[in-house]
């Protein structure tokens, strides 16, 4: 019995250690980031590396989520004779919830694991120590640009994803349920208020920040050897997924009463 309690206790402690480590790295990254030089070139380089190269995955994800959700809603609404309301239902679900969350879970996880693998390999091959030994700050050089880039890239990908999801939904609405594209678009847009877009964007910004900091933290935490890089990368997928879902719930609790 005590063994079980001890195990729970050590897991809880490891969890707090992890949250503490992430918070500390976030604080240090922000503190180093506001000092000159701001590393604008590095940030843009990372936005291209993380954001632009994620466009194919983001495109596929958004189109298929838009199509699948519209089909599901269409089927359900058709049984009530309300298939014309498919645009309203799909719009709310996609913009508020599904596009930011699924974008973060797919594209965000890809971005975070990429960061972990890159920084983990740098840690194992002593490149992070080499940066410090040359008098530079590894957190400023490596974490800050990735954190900012992920925080900016994910909302931009979400805006792009919202447009594509609308397009995907319109194709299904028209071809499967005979709801004209113009009508689908009108009902989709009419149902959305500014706060819906804001809540979607705030979620994407928060998810981007989480993805950036978790990806970097796990990379910096990598121990020795190439196996450690694999372990860190796997842990990153689990950690980002759980963190995104928890953050999604917290932000939904905050935004729903406001909306």
């Amino acid at each position: 019995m005590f063994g079980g309690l001890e195990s729970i206790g050590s897991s809880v402690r490891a969890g707090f250690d992890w949250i503490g480590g992430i918070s500390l790295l976030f604080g240090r990254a922000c503190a180093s980031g506001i000092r000159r030089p701001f590393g604008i070139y590095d940030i843009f380089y990372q936005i291209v590396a993380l954001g632009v190269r994620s466009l194919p995955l983001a495109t596929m994800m958004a189109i298929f989520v838009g199509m699948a959700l519209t089909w599901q809603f269409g089927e359900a609404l058709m049984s009530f004779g309300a298939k014309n309301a498919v645009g309203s239902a799909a719009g709310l679900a996609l913009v508020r919830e599904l596009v930011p969350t699924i974008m973060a879970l797919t594209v965000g996880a890809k971005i975070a694991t990429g960061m972990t693998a890159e920084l983990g390999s740098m840690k194992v091959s002593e490149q992070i120590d080499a940066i410090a030994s040359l008098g530079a700050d590894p957190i400023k050089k490596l974490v800050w640009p990735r954190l900012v880039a992920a925080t900016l890239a994910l909302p931009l990908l979400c805006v792009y994803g919202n447009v594509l999801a609308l397009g995907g939904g319109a194709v299904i609405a028209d071809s499967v349920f005979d709801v004209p594209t113009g009508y689908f678009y009108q009902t989709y847009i009419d149902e959305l208020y500014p706060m819906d877009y804001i809540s979607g964007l705030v979620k994407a910004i928060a998810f981007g920040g989480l993805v950036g900091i978790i990806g970097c933290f796990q990379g910096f935490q990598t121990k020795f050897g190439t196996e450690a890089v694999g372990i860190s990368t796997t842990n990153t997928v689990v950690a980002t997924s759980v963190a995104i879902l928890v953050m999604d719930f917290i932000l939904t609790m905050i935004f729903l009463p406001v909306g």
Partner: protein
Amino acid sequence: MTAVFELRNLYKAFGENVIYEDMNLEIEQGETFTIIGGSGMGKSVCFKLMIGLLPYEGGHVLFKGQEVADMNREQLRELRRNVSMVFQGGAMFDSMSVLDNVTYALREHTKMTDEQMLERAKECLDMVGLGYDRGIMYRMPASLSGGMRKRAALARSIAIKPEVILYDEPTTGLDPANIERIGAMIQKLQKELQVTSIVVTHDMQIALERSDRVAMLHEKKFPFVGPSADFRDHAEPVVRDFIKGVYHEDQDE
């Protein structure tokens, strides 16, 4: 001679694994000092303590009389500008060309123009025998051989004109010709740039022929420190056996 680095009563441990206990070491300005000792005993840790990459739990690490642990961000930056480290595997930045690697510290610490940095990079690559006329500056580290990577890493370390260069196993994994070349280069750089060179190595040729003094790490301390000439026929069996490569079964325990 004045001491560049002084390590006094140093205690360093990773969890329950004690690396140094009451360790003392003094390195003088302008000398080539070699540290030898068994694998995994913590020779490289010494370098990381010297430039503040690792904290220590007790004792003192002094750079020109100043405690490394008490240094603020700017002082640490200045320390690392003056003390350059060549890592075991080179630790070249994969995503940057050789030129960007070599000029990295110049961009961090100086206001040199791109042309000035290019000239300095050429000078350094020439000094380490890599040259610059075969497009090597624009190649990525992954396309270089092990020996070339180590020399490029050395060029990166000397670009900022440091006072002290720390070489972490500079000849590991190299063929005999490259070992000889790196050994000669350490001596050449020490003479041409008047730097203090501290070398961690298993290579007895470098330890005995290329350095002024040698220290052997044994039982978490440096009990044997002296001129390299005295080490070849050291009175202590432990030192003699290590240099001659005599294997004892209890080494595995």
